[in-house]
């Protein structure tokens, strides 16, 4: 919907107000990371300091939580990339029995509230007497990361012409060559974008993780403990800022990667 008339003032104000509501709290995180106040959330901050950046950098518990989160996110992303791409290729390129069921099944873990995924995995672990480990966390994360990769890959597969693959085969490329030389370069940016979003989603996940982590602490669980029982507010402020940076940068990158793809394909919605 496009037109060149000017927006009425109340609409402008409401839209600007809404945008402010969306962004101001995130901006606030960046201010609080440098406050000198230790005991409360006092506004305006009495002064600014870089001291807490250094204190946070020397905290082993923060680093351990960060590394666990990164490890889980990396493994989950790899699993999601493999399973999501395969499924997307099958669903986009062929008709087969159970195709609708599969595309519904993939979306289910993200359509149902996370607490349901979490508690069903938890009760399954206890029924099967599986001890909590990095892998129990990965099991939960990969399940909902698949859909992110799948969505990105399936959209790209639908826009990639099947004739390309036929042509490669006609010219004598075997299956492996067709995949590495024709298919992969065509879907690479979609996979990169999907992979980054899946990574960000896993890195940030807390609802499912509280059920599958046991005594382990990922960064979001560390944050949650601080939120429920605040112990070191200045350190939490700094960690919050770092988390915003870590999740936001992949989002921006994914936006630029897929934006060009959408335009070249001329897929106007």
């Amino acid at each position, binding site marked *: 919907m496009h037109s060149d008339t000017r927006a009425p003032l109340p609409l402008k104000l*409401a*839209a600007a107000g809404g945008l402010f509501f969306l962004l101001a709290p995130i901006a606030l995180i960046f201010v609080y990371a440098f406050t000198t106040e230790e005991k*409360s959330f006092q506004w305006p901050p009495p002064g600014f300091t870089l001291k807490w950046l250094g204190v946070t950098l020397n905290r082993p518990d923060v680093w351990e939580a960060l590394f666990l989160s990164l490890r889980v996110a990396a493994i989950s992303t790899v699993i999601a990339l493999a399973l999501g791409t395969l499924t997307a290729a099958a669903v986009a390129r062929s008709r087969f029995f159970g195709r609708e069921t599969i595309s519904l099944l993939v979306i289910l873990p993200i359509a149902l*509230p996370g607490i349901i995924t979490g508690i069903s995995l938890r009760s399954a672990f206890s029924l099967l007497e599986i001890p909590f480990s990095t892998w129990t966390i990965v099991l939960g994360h990969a399940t909902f990361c698949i859909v992110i990769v799948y969505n990105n890959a399936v959209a790209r597969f639908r826009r990639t012409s099947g004739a390309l693959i036929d042509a490669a085969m006609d010219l004598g490329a075997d299956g492996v060559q067709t995949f590495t030389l024709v298919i992969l370069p065509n879907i690479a940016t979609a996979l990169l974008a999907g992979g980054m979003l899946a990574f960000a989603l896993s890195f940030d996940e807390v609802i499912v993780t509280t059920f599958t982590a046991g005594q382990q602490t990922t960064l979001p669980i560390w944050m949650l403990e601080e939120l429920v029982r605040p112990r070191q507010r200045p350190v939490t402020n700094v960690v919050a800022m770092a988390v915003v940076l870590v999740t936001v940068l992949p989002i921006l990158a994914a936006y630029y990667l897929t934006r060009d793809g959408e335009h070249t394909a001329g897929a106007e*919605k």
Partner: protein
Amino acid sequence: MSALSPAIFAPRSGPLSRAVDWVIRHPRMFVFLMVLPISLWLGIVYIGALIALLIQSFFSIDEYSGLIVHEFTLKTYAELFRSYNLDIIIRTVSMAAAVTLAAAVIAFPIAYFAARYARGKWKALFYIGVMLPLWSSYLVKVYAWKLVLAKEGILNWLFAKLHLTWALEAALALPVVGGNSLSVSYLGTFIVFVYIWLPYMIIPVQASLERVPAPLLEAAADLGATPAQSFRMVLFPLAMPGIVAGSIFTFSLTLGDYIIPQIIGSSRLFIGQAVYTQQGTAGNIPLAAAFTVVPIVIMGLYLWGARKMGAFDAL
């Protein structure tokens, strides 16, 4: 130097290539192999766990020993209708409804402006402005609101500067929704829920508004409709499918959340918290499982109703 690669590759004869070629020549086998991993993963890990949970909701807990009785019974479901548990369900559903309504009202102008008037840089700003909060860490957003709503925080400071503290106090004095301060009242919980789920409403509403042709609104104006009339009779009905799609997210996400009401809100439980405490400290897995069935049933009814209204056909 043979840097030039041949235009036509010689057929390979390795075992891997031969196996791949064989699979490609048998399309049914090919598809079967492609969907096998996902079927195993989701079938065993996810659906298996889900079914195991549902089965447990038909067990019950022995009131004296605290052990789970592995016999089929509807006793646990009957427990959901005790007034204490029923209150939890009603509280959660009314919160979800209120949050959905507020999110729709706030999202509409943003989505409408972005769809109809924003161009170039502004369009990008609106896009980032919605995607940034959508993808920022959930906990960090909740934390940000803890900063905003704190007694010594920015919101109270702002109200004091504007000499509006009396208005805030009047709102907090309201029965049920009020409380000692914003961070321990339903009002606070409500604001944070609206904030966190707002992007999920804006995106589908904006998508449905992008599809409304501008001449349609001009035609309405030419035919003598006031802006209010053309909103009510043209724009709103066309945006409805997007609002319904967004409401599915805001409703479902509010039903299942247990972290926001735990951090910002009164001590009264929501469904998610009830599930969490029942399976954790109380050790009553059957009741926790029965509680998780509530959002599943409500969302099932919700989706069924949306379908009846034709929301999916219009999407």
